[in-house]
């Protein structure tokens, strides 16, 4: 019995479907998850209750994870669900519960002047990003079409990511651990009650 590989799965899927169906499905899901992500982000920004805002943001992050998978970054998608949606957002919810902010602040959204400023800045940044994204990159810098998918089919989803992480970027990886240690120490120091002998 041959081991089950992503390449086999791709072959099976492409055999069972008429030509072109897969790419239409792919495009459809890409747009679907992108639009859900944007709509949930808009709802997240406009909700009064912090708990509702967190839950909409979690929805955005799940959709982003789906987009990562569609962009041939399966491992990043898994990490997105585990670390972002699973851990970071739970910490946010926990703090909201701890500080008892669930009912929301009355009129937490700023007045019309700030909304105009925010809208103007948003439009300016959007225009800037679109102008930048029209820039052309040299053709010899781009990989051939489907290179990432082929790499994943050959080496699995984690190997192509782990090799540069532990070779080229090893120093950055080690410094990250120092950063996390500093963050843990900082959080404990900041969270500790000052001047309370019992807390020590």
């Amino acid at each position, binding site marked *: 019995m041959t081991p089950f590989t992503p390449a086999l799965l791709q072959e099976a899927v492409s055999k069972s479907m008429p030509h072109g169906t897969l790419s239409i499905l792919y495009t459809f899901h890409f747009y679907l998850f992108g639009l859900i992500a*944007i709509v949930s982000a808009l709802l997240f920004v406009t909700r009064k209750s912090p708990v509702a805002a967190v839950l909409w943001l979690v929805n955005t992050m799940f959709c982003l994870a789906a987009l990562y998978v569609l962009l041939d970054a399966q491992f990043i998608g898994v990490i997105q669900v585990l670390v972002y949606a699973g851990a970071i957002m739970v910490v946010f919810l926990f703090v909201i519960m701890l500080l008892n902010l669930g009912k929301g602040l009355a009129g937490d959204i700023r007045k019309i002047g700030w909304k105009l400023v925010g809208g103007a800045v948003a439009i300016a940044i959007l225009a800037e990003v679109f102008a930048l994204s029209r820039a052309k990159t040299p053709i010899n810098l781009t990989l051939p079409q489907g290179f990432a998918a082929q790499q994943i089919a050959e080496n699995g989803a984690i190997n192509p990511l782990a090799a540069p992480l532990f070779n080229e970027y090893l120093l950055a990886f080690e410094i990250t651990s120092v950063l996390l240690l500093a963050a843990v120490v900082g959080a404990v120091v900041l969270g500790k009650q000052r001047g309370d002998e019992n807390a020590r």
Partner: protein
Amino acid sequence: MLAEALFFSAVLFVIGVFGVLIRRNAIIVFMCVELMLNAVNLSFVAFAQAYGVGGQVFVFFVMTVAAAEAAVGLAIIIALFRHRQTVDLANINLLKG
């Protein structure tokens, strides 16, 4: 799919910027920053598909920094709440002079 991913990324980033500007709840402002980091991650992943896997390694680092930032930032918010009994940014103006 690069152009579409960059479009979604730009829109999500701008929604994050907009949220930082119009909200006064410190926790929501903080989550808007997280949304901006996520938007940038999306462009990194989209570019990684076209230009090599280095972009995904960067997403890894961005996530680590975001986790550290969340831990320290939420500790700061808790410390602020202890002093002022509020997380409304309009009432937090210690550095205003």
